């Protein structure tokens, strides 16, 4: 297979922060890669480098066969970009927005209008076509955004957290639209914070943390590494958490989370074992005051992170994101 996106040891620093710390990744032509990581992991910086918006300090990247630093114009001509920033004009109608994109992508007037009509049809936007974009729902606007980014079929499409902030129904509709784009042969690099989203859409998943790749594989392979389901015991009191964790060590590798204790589960029998173990510990005189909840759940990004990096995805998230955002204006841009 050939690679449509290939990044090799990308480094990008903002002051003291290494937003990208030797990031390498590869997206095979015609597939979807899910770039998964918490806020501040470097996802947006990676997208900015690959879409020629930022020049890396070191490392190389090729998109659709063109070097992002040496041939930015060729890269820009081969890509579509869309994301959490909905940058369509609220004062224009969806049809006008799409015609505008067509014109900027050098389609003739008539061709741009024809293409806009086609895209409105394809993305189920005909009903909203002639209302002001600003009055449409978040999900509809995101679909329009997606339509605009493929006005001139790109070889590679970058989707930066395409469903962040969407309600579940809009999210399902957007997923369907993304799947159809892949079916039409477009290579897609998708960033997300949701394991579920990567699981639904991506052929392969690359997990990054602090600007580095921490794991790579299919979603199934990654979940296997976490060990399928997780048994989570919710405990309000932190000292109780430690007591419970100690009491359960015989059942498997127990980890402390922000609101309780987790351990890998093989099925409902793990629940029974946990309850029995806690009961025995109580009878043995262990002063466990309050267990709020015990349940089985599917692994989340946080579990994957715990399993792969030994630290939780959540705590550093806010801080890292803030630093990346604040540091950006000082950085240099690829021309």
């Amino acid at each position: 297979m050939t690679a449509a996106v290939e990044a090799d040891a990308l480094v990008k620093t903002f002051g003291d922060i290494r937003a990208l710390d030797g990031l390498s990744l590869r997206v095979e032509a015609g597939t979807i890669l899910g770039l998964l990581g918490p806020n501040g992991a470097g996802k947006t910086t990676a997208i900015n480098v690959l879409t020629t918006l930022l020049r890396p300090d070191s490392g190389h990247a090729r998109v659709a066969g063109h070097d992002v630093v040496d041939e930015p114009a060729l890269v820009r001509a081969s890509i579509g970009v869309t994301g959490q920033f909905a940058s369509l004009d609220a004062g224009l109608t969806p049809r006008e927005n799409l015609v505008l994109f067509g014109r900027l992508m050098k389609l003739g007037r008539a061709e741009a209008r024809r293409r806009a009509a086609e895209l409105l049809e394809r993305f189920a936007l005909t009903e909203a076509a002639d209302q002001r974009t600003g009055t449409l729902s978040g999900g509809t606007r995101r679909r329009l955004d997606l339509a605009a980014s493929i006005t001139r079929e790109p070889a590679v499409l970058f989707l930066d957290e395409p469903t962040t902030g969407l309600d579940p129904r809009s999210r399902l509709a957007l997923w369907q639209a993304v799947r159809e784009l892949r079916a039409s042969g477009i290579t897609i690099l998708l960033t997300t914070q949701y394991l579920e989203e990567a699981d639904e859409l991506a052929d392969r998943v690359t997990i990054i943390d602090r600007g580095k790749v921490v794991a790579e594989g299919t979603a199934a392979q990654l979940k296997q590494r976490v060990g399928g389901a997780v048994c989570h015991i919710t405990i309000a009191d932190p000292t109780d958490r430690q007591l419970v964790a100690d009491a359960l060590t015989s059942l498997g590798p127990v980890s402390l989370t922000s609101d309780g204790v987790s351990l890998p589960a093989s099925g409902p029998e793990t629940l029974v074992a946990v309850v029995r173990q806690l009961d025995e510990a109580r009878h043995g005189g262990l002063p466990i005051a309050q267990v709020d909840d015990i349940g089985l759940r599917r692994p989340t990004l946080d579990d994957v992170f715990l399993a792969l990096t030994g630290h939780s995805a959540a705590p550093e998230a806010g801080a890292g994101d803030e630093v990346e955002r604040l540091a950006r204006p000082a950085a240099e841009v690829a021309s």
Partner: protein
Amino acid sequence: MTAAAPAATLAGPPPGAAVTDPRPALATDVAVLAGRHLRLMSRRPASIISAIVLPLVFALLFFTVFSRVMRRSGIDYIDYLLPAVVIQTVFFTGMSAAILAAEDALSGTLRRLRAMSVSRSAPALGLLAAELVRSVVSLGVLLAVGAALGFRFHGGPWKALGFPVVMLAFGAALVTCHIALGLAIRRLEAVTTATNLIYFPFMLLSSAFTPASAFPSWLRPLVEQQPVSRVADALRALTAQDAALARPLLIAGAWLLGLLLLGVVGATRAIGRPS
């Protein structure tokens, strides 16, 4: 753990890749983006008010308040006033440009355009073109109401043609500076404050609305020399019957060239900054 293959196996464009001319076409981009701004302005009450209603209100207000006083000192005030409200309109146009530029930077529009095959300078030039079209509309409105109040070009058709040319040159210089300001500040309230801090001193401490002789003598040199007064001098020379033309035009031209240069350098630097 790393996913990338060595650089030697890098692939060419995948099959089905869009064959697109990577060279952006500046003229098309500017025209398309100017059209975008004009369409958005035409749907924005604030734009219509500041382009058409405010200039009219100021023209009528100043005329009503000052024309009798000025006539007593031998000045036909509508002839004196029109260049002033034209200059004021150009300032309003500049404010609009600063706000629209900042909005495009804040909304992610500029970021998105930068990842497309669109010329680097096209967003700024498109906005400039749109604002110049807007100021032509304002000028038309002002000339119509001015004519109704008695304004005339006394110097013949050639000088009359020079009038919009000087106005547009002033517009190009001022709007470029304001676009630079909007792109550099990128916070809407701060942009509004900054444009007011430029507008009020330059407009009020000038010979636009009242002759320099009306200012205290220590302030007079400043009032006479500053660019807004110099542009007013040039515009008035073009409306008068037999005023010397070369000197005011040259001085105004030099100021405008300097302002334009300032704006171009500022805008270029601001565009180079990542959003």
